[in-house]
């Protein structure tokens, strides 16, 4: 079943917002966890202390806010489009994540990893060309 034309515009718009907020959220989480340090002590009290530090971190909260905005856009788009369409189509965010990781966090990204990310995006483009809904309504 094909989506009515009116749904394509708002689907693309919401998937764009998902890509931006999702990738920015992940980059901010990495920034926060980098400040907190690598988790290496597995004792429950040490883990609890780490998670407590996590929730006192500004970047982590900004990341969570960004991911919540991602989640709202995601839940809305899922109300009319298929999961196996929305999930891959939102993956253009992988390119944004790599770019933001490189630009904001100064991550060293080998050429092969860039190629891998681009191949992921190519797969996403193929997936995005399929109809957003295949199941009947109701």
């Amino acid at each position: 079943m094909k989506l009515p034309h009116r749904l394509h515009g708002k689907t693309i718009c919401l998937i764009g917002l998902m890509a931006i907020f999702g990738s920015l959220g992940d980059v901010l989480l990495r920034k926060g966890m980098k400040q907190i340090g690598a988790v290496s002590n597995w004792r429950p009290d040490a883990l609890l202390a780490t998670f407590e530090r996590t929730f006192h971190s500004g970047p982590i909260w900004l990341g969570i806010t960004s991911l919540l905005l991602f989640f709202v856009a995601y839940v809305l788009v899922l109300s009319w489009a298929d999961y196996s369409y929305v999930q891959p189509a939102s993956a253009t965010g992988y390119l944004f994540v790599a770019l933001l990781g490189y630009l904001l966090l100064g991550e060293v990204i080998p050429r092969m990893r860039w190629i891998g990310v681009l191949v992921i995006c190519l797969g996403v483009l193929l997936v995005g060309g399929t109809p957003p809904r295949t199941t009947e309504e109701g």
Partner: protein
Amino acid sequence: MTVRDAVFLFIVIVAGTGGELAVTHTMKQIGEVQSFYPHHLLRVILRAFRSGWMWFGLALMTLSFFSLLMLLSWENVSFVVPVTALSYVLGAFGGKFLLGERVEPRRWLGVALVCLGVLLVCVG
């Protein structure tokens, strides 16, 4: 990638995908969101939270989130996030077998390319 990374990646992917499928199931029961007025959206959100599937989905997504935080404390985001794209395999299978969605050959090809990309990211 260490064994520790692989274990946490597995939790991120399985719990995250399971959570998303449960949330999708809830939203499909609620039906298409047509109005974006805040009070209408709030009503949709409240309806969603009356569903057990929504809570189950959120619990799994929370588990996935904390596992992701652990991974991000060890590895770069430009490695961790693309590698989590392995969830596409699980997503396509879950969509097909659990939600009854029809996954076209072209979509399967896209999913296969995503897997190849993940492999290249790991090699890089």
